[in-house]
Every structure is written in structure tokens, then in C-alpha cells.
């Protein structure tokens, strides 16, 4: 089985979720080729060998420095054919998911996104995917010879299995028609840790009483190396930026640890956090529905608990 992995990068570095995609492909067995597009540091590309890539292709054309969905799909589909690939693996993201859809349509491949574990190939090619926003799973068989699978965060454990590999330049034949979308500028969100990729998330809800009280959450997040999130009412009221909204129609997170402070736990919020490994809920209302979905809970005043928790974690580090 030949597996092509599309690896995403940001500012020259390979994204963490793409390392998971390489590790996932490696664990599937078969021969793994990684494909990176645009500006990526050479050491980063060579390092993909450590996670299981046997070959690394790099299409370095500067037109590919920006993630134009149509153009990326064209390059990836062409490489898939050039490499005689059977399966394309990519990580589900704001770029990976829409690109994967177009590649599958181009190739006439079976498509599954939000895949949560390795395919079962004992009879056919079966994948388990998350549906109903994390509230259920579907087992589906992919019946076409070519397959495209998007993996959900935490579908594979990233571990080193080998050493560096050399990088092969990939000459992409680019067509102007694929660049009709012109990316004019980009805006970076504030904060050091990106919410969708964070291992720890500290979120606040209406119980925080106002944007001026967020310093406690930010300090705790800083201590933990965590991203900050919030509930929908909080972003709707403009207390926090929209990209921090965790929930059904916001960001779905899958961290190791999710700490919810002053969030009651409406079912729409839970839909965004139900893939978290461990959930801590701090709320002054003992009847808050979030406690039913939590691993650990504290009933109490957030303004009293936050600084104490921050100190205790600092001391434990």
C-alpha cells in the first residue's frame, strides 16, 4: 500500500496535526510519502522521516506559500497519481478538510473525514469516523481503489520510529486557473497557543461576569501552556474574540485537559469539548449540567479558586 500524506506548515514549520497524519500513515503500514507545499524549512522536512515518512516530496514554488484550496488540491491529486498512491492521509483542519474533498472528487476516490482510529483492513477497508459533532461514530467501508482520509486530532500518537530522510524536490505543474482565489492578507490571532491544536484549554463562560475578569483565566493558561477558550454567549457579547468560541458551531477541541470556568455546559458547548481526555469544571452552581460531563468538579467561586489553582499548579511544576 502506497500512502501519500499531505503535511501542512505555518511559517516554515510543519504543523503538529500533520505529524499526527504521518504517524497515522506509518501505523497503517505500507510505504509513506509525505508531500509539503510552499515555504517549509529543510530541517523540518528531513525530520518527517523520524515519524515514518520513507520519502519527502517538496513542491517549493512560491505561489504555493499561501494555501489556495483549489491549487493545493490540484498539486496533491497530481502527486497522488505520480506516486501511484492508494491512500491519501491528511489531518482535518481549515485547510486539510476542504482540500481533501476536492482531491477525492478529482481522483474519483472514496472519502472519509474525522477518522478517529486506524482503518480496519481485515475485510475491505473500514474506517471509524466521528459524527453528530462527537456524539456518535459511524463505521464506513471505503470501496473505491483510491481513498482519501482526513484524521481527527489525537487519531494517532506521534512517536519517533526512524531517522531523517532526504528531501526530493517536486515539480508541480501549476495552472493559473487554480489560482483564481487571491489571498490578499492574513491576520494572526493573539495568544501563543492555538486553540484547535492545544493540549490544554482553559475556557471561561458567563460566570466570569465580564471581559475585565479574564486575566485570571489568561494567567492560568500561561502557567499551563494552554490556549484560552470561551462559551458562545461570551463571544456573542464580544467579551472574547469569535475564534475562541468552543462549541457546536465554534471550534471543536480535543485536548488532554479542558478546564471550564463559569460555563454551565449547554449541550451545544459540550459538543465542542466531548473529545477531550479529561474535563475539569469549576462552577458556583452545583446543578450546572456541565458537572455530568466532567471528570473532576469544584463547586465554588471562580474568582476565589482561580488564583489558588494557578499557585498550586506553579508549585507542582
Amino acid at each position, binding site marked *: 500500500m502506497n500512502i501519500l500524506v499531505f503535511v501542512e506548515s505555518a511559517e516554515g514549520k510543519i504543523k503538529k496535526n500533520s505529524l499526527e497524519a504521518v504517524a497515522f500513515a506509518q501505523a497503517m503500514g505500507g510505504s509513506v510519502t509525505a508531500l509539503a507545499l510552499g515555504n517549509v524549512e529543510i530541517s523540518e522536512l528531513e525530520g518527517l522521516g523520524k515519524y515514518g515518512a520513507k520519502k519527502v516530496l517538496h513542491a517549493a514554488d512560491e505561489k504555493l506559500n499561501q*494555501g489556495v*484550496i483549489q491549487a493545493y488540491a490540484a498539486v496533491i491529486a497530481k502527486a497522488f497519481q505520480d506516486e501511484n498512491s492508494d491512500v491519501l492521509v491528511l489531518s482535518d483542519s481549515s485547510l486539510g478538510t476542504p482540500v481533501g474533498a476536492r482531491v*477525492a*472528487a478529482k481522483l474519483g476516490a472514496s*472519502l472519509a*473525514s474525522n477518522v478517529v482510529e486506524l482503518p480496519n483492513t481485515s475485510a475491505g477497508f473500514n474506517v471509524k469516523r466521528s459524527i453528530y459533532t462527537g456524539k456518535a461514530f459511524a*463505521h464506513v467501508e471505503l470501496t473505491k481503489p483510491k481513498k482519501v482520509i482526513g484524521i481527527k486530532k489525537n487519531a494517532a500518537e506521534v512517536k519517533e520510529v526512524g531517522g531523517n530522510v532526504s528531501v526530493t524536490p517536486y515539480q508541480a505543474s501549476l495552472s493559473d486557473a487554480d489560482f483564481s482565489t*487571491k489571498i*490578499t492578507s492574513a491576520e494572526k490571532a493573539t495568544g501563543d497557543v492555538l486553540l484547535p491544536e492545544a493540549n490544554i484549554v482553559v475556557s471561561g463562560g458567563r460566570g466570569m461576569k465580564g471581559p475585565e475578569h479574564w486575566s485570571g483565566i489568561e494567567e492560568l493558561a500561561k502557567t499551563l501552556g494552554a490556549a484560552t477558550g470561551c462559551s458562545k454567549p461570551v463571544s456573542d457579547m464580544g467579551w472574547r474574540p469569535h475564534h475562541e468560541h468552543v462549541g457546536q458551531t*465554534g471550534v471543536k477541541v480535543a485536548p488532554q485537559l479542558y478546564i471550564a470556568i463559569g460555563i454551565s455546559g449547554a449541550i451545544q458547548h459540550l459538543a465542542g469539548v466531548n473529545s477531550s481526555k479529561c474535563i475539569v469544571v469549576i462552577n458556583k452552581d452545583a446543578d450546572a449540567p456541565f458537572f455530568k460531563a466532567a471528570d473532576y468538579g469544584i463547586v465554588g467561586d471562580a474568582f476565589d479558586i482561580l488564583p489558588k489553582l494557578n499557585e498550586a499548579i506553579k508549585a507542582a511544576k
Partner: protein
Amino acid sequence: MKILVCISHVPDTTSKINFIDNNTKFDTNGVQFIIGPYDDYALARAVELKESSGATITVINVGLVDTEPTIRKALAIGADDAIRVNAEPTDSFFVASQIAEQAKAGGYDLILMGRESIDYNSGAVHGIVGELLGVPSISPVMKLDIEGNTAKLAREIEGGKEYMEVSLPFVAGCQEPIAEWKIPNMRGIMSARTKPLKVVEPSTVDSGVKLQKFELPPAKGSVKMIPADNVQELVNLLKNEAKVL
């Protein structure tokens, strides 16, 4: 300008998810169905564009006859006419193929839908429709303005936003805050009853995706409560029991 808005008919976000027939079928018992929340944003933006610069809006849904109340709601919100492709929406490629076929016949300037449906969450239909029509597809779009033949958009990416320009026609998968959800008024509801709703039969498509069964996640264990005056205990548990610190 002709706008096509694709809507999904999905369980309300508060629904309990259950399966029947040996875990092969979704249990609709007691479930209320709604326009997909992301599709609702797409529809709301289409109605705003119609109000500001004039447009006609066609909504399309791939679904069986039970989706018609959901389609009528979209008509009540402000769409002018509707197409229902009479088939179970089994997977992204199947749905996208039906939409692409109708879109080709209708010659739309703009095709809007949600970034994903909230039942299967694939987030693939916009990309496949774009590919089948040979036009750009952009998702997730959080801002969309049209000036003449050009659109200016903002796309949400991990850790920020990207701003872009693209010529019509194209496909966009939408999300908040592209527009505010619209609630139909009485006049809209009345007029929706008589707006044209065309039912067409699906074309045959092999998407290469076959459902085997559904599964519910294991029930969550009970929560461990910690006294508010003992945060040290929480830190110990996170470190030694949950092993997440």
C-alpha cells in the same frame, strides 16, 4: 444575481442521539429537525445580499419528503423558490453530485452552504461541488461581500483569518459571524406556502462509501467532586490519576 443556498435537514443541536435497527439507522423518535445551523448562516447572508443589492435565492435540499417543512422554513426566511432532490442524503459525494447537477442546470452566480452539516460533519460538500463545477470553493467563510463581479471574503484559519478576493461564480462554506440567523416573520411564513418547490429525482452516483453501523461512545464515568478549599487535591489528581499535567 442568482444565489443557490444548499441546506441540510438535521437534528436540533439539543437532540439526544440514538440508533435503531441494530445500530444501522438514526432514531428520529422525538427528534426535532432544523435547517443546519451553518446552512442557516449561509441563508441569512444570501437574504442580506438580496435585500442590499437584489438577487434571487433558490434553496436546494437532498432529502426525502419529510424535509419539506425545513425547506418551507427557508422559503419563509426569504428564499424565492426551492428544489428538493428526492433521495436519502447518504454521504458527501452523493449529495454534492446532486447539487452540482442542479447547479449546472440553473446557472448560479454564487453557491452558498454551511461549512459542514451537523449530522455527518464531513465538511466536504462545498469542495466537491466546486470541483465538479470547476469553480473555486472556499471554506470556512466568516465574511462575504460582493462588489460587481468580485467577492471579498474572510476565511477562518487556525490562529487567525485570511482575506481573499475571487470572481463569481464560486462555492462558499459559511460559518458565523457571516450574518445573524433570521427568524421568519408571519408574512414570510404565509408567502412560503405558495412559493414553488420543485421535486426532482436523483441521478445514480457511486460514492464508494458504504455505511456498516453506528456506535455511541461509552457512557462517561461519574464526576469526582473536590472541595473548593482544596485545590491542591485537584492538582494531585490531574497529575497522578488523570496524568494530564
